[in-house]
């Protein structure tokens, strides 16, 4: 058999078009393209891809099913390990996980596993829209109740596994909408919100109860949940409060945290203001500070809101950027202007208190630091200013203290994250945790992996085996 070394390309909206709309950028495979790409999988006996996947999807299994045009089998295989494939097929950093270890990658491009996952998940969504679908299998109700704090990736994954194991599961969400970072953080053009809601709808059909407008730690506390009929609790409360650089002028009007900027646009739909009531400042010259996925999302969002120049300011070089290669590439294609090895030192405001420029300094890379990346060092005398009317700070988060403060005995780590052991168990009996609140900001799929692991531990704990 002739081996095709190249990945089957996926159609995308051209950069010149997409930078003016919020529609999804990659358009997905057709059935023919999916089968063609699936046929590139060697079905190798070692299948390193399965271990490369944080939720251990049987990847060769579902790809074989696609090749045989058995999409129902393909989705059933994926659903055994992943309750949100339409989401992960779009936002997983496959190039660092399953595809990084794909044997095909040694002789050519790795198999486009993420695109195939997305194809199958979208096929399933299409069927659901037509009313043709079957619910994943579920064990008999066992009468035990589990509360899930937060409806983001870790909470949904944990809930999805527990409901299938026969537990009575209730998710508590502070916001008015479910999905956590999938709805407030990741933009529409990377993950359409309708897809998130369809995936969550399926979980509700399985019997998961969702209570919005309840903030655990304020409206109710974890001890109260345990005293009110819940046998176990999973905390998946997310990454928390935005970090700032604490440099002069950082609180001028027009300077946003990425969390605020993205929440206004994504969750509150400020890009449709005044049809929607939440406002956002539409700026002409925007500086985004940071080099991660959140920085790329912010920059590309600012562009779509009508900015003429979007400067991405990052203190290290392109190589050290934590963002996914695909996001960096898409941002460059759309015309985001990269200012690498550059760091802001202060912001200057106008007479009304709005930001009007950013003073930056050039950086060079020194020795490696604790993160294993070369430490950026300012180059004295290299200061320069950029005229901007908006700044978005995307340099990470610190854990929200509300839950630890209201849960006696809940141990926290050095930076305020909740401490959990390798099974996801916290220092409080019956309380488990996972995702960004435990690890600090990471990815959707690692949070889902932690949620699944905790579900397994909760199951063992409630059957008296942990």
């Amino acid at each position, binding site marked *: 058999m002739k081996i095709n070394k190249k990945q089957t390309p996926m159609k995308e909206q051209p950069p010149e078009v997409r930078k003016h709309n919020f529609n999804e950028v990659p358009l997905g495979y057709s059935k023919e393209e999916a089968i063609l790409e699936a046929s590139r999988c060697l079905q190798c006996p070692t299948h390193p891809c399965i271990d490369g996947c944080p939720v251990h999807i049987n990847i060769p299994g579902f790809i074989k099913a696609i090749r045989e045009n058995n999409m129902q089998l393909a989705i059933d295989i994926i659903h055994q390990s992943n309750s949100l494939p339409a989401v992960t097929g779009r936002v997983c950093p496959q190039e660092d996980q399953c595809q990084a270890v794909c044997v095909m990658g040694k002789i050519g491009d790795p198999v486009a596993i993420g695109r195939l996952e997305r194809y199958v998940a979208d096929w399933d969504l299409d069927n659901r829209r037509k009313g043709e679908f079957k619910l994943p299998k579920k064990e008999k109700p066992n009468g035990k109740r589990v509360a899930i704090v937060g409806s983001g990736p870790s909470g949904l994954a944990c809930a999805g596994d527990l409901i299938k194991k026969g537990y009575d599961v209730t998710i508590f969400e502070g*916001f008015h909408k479910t999905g956590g970072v999938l709805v407030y953080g990741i933009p529409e053009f990377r993950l359409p919100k309708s897809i998130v809601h369809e995936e969550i709808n399926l979980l509700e059909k399985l019997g998961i109860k969702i209570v919005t407008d309840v903030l655990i730690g304020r409206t109710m506390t974890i001890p109260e949940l345990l005293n009110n009929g819940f046998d176990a609790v999973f905390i998946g409360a997310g990454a928390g409060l935005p970090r700032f650089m604490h440099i002069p002028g950082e609180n001028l009007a027009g300077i*946003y945290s990425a969390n605020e900027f993205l*929440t206004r646009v994504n969750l*509150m739909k400020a890009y449709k203001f*005044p049809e929607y*009531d*939440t*406002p956002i*400042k539409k700026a002409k010259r925007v500086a985004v500070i940071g080099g991660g996925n959140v920085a790329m999302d912010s920059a590309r969002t600012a562009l779509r809101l009508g900015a003429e120049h979007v400067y991405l300011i990052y203190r290290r070089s392109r190589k050290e950027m934590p963002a996914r290669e695909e996001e960096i590439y898409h941002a460059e294609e759309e015309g985001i202007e990269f200012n690498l090895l550059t760091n802001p030192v202060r912001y200057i405001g106008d007479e*009304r208190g709005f930001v009007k420029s950013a003073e930056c300094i050039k950086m060079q890379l020194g020795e490696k630091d604790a993160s294993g990346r070369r430490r950026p060092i300012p180059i004295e005398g290299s200061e320069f200013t950029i005229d901007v009317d908006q700044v978005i700070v995307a340099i990470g988060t610190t854990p929200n203290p509300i839950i630890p403060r209201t849960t006696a005995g809940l141990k926290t780590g050095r930076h305020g994250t909740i401490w959990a052991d390798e099974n996801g168990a916290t220092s409080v009996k019956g309380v488990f945790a996972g995702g960004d609140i435990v690890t600090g900001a990471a990815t959707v799929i690692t949070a889902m992996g932690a949620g699944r692991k905790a579900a397994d531990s909760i199951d063992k704990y409630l059957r008296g085996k942990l």
Partner: protein
Amino acid sequence: MFKILEKQKLVPKIELMQIEAPLVAKKAEPGQFVVIRVNENGERIPLTIADFDRNKGVITIVFQKVGKTTHLLATKNKGDVIADVLGPLGNPSEINHFGKVVCIGGGVGVAPIYPLARKLKKNGNEVTTIVGYRSKDYVFWEERIRNVSDRVFVATNDGSYGEKGFVTDILKRLMDRGERIDRVFAIGPAIMMKVVCDVTREKAIKTMVSLNSLMVCGMGMCGACRVIVGGETKFTCADGPDFDGHLVDFNILMERLNTYKEEEKISFEKWKEEVGYYEDK
């Protein structure tokens, strides 16, 4: 969905609503607030809890009609529902036995002074309350405030009721008389709280203010509500809303409150046109 059980126009532009929210009522303490969203297209706005009845599961909000959202909220009546009410948010006011306490409320800020003074009194404090309004027509809750205070002073800007002048004039007079004041609480417009702090700073009387910064999430993830306190960045929803007023940078607070002035106007004008609304003067 949260049901409105009672609605009442208190004075021009200020409305009272009782909302069925049992979980919020069960936990609410003086100083805390809710974030509400009126409908599907609505924005999230913070409103201070003016009262709560744990047994009935009801909270009271008192709000001033300023822009679109508050005007829209005021069109809702008894029996109607509000899409979202999240709370109680923020940290409760720190209330101890301080001794002689002065509570200061300005305009719509008089409402949250009521549960605060009530709890301060319950904790054995001697409570003096100073309330300020624009004019006689805007005076509300005077009786309620009297019921939970040992002494009440009323000021109006034009002197049409109580004393002519500002709440700070009265505070200054008490201080000049040499009255002992162990703690001051101030809730009202940012400029009022700023001036109160300027007055009490001279004699180093600890003054707690309840900050009304911009807000989106209300639960400690977005950072919209950041304020500068003692030179550090703090978040009103996670660290406040009460802060030591002598450490607050009120200028930055007020500048940031003006961020969306233009957008607020666009939104309000559009709404007025859609519903054919004429402002009551």
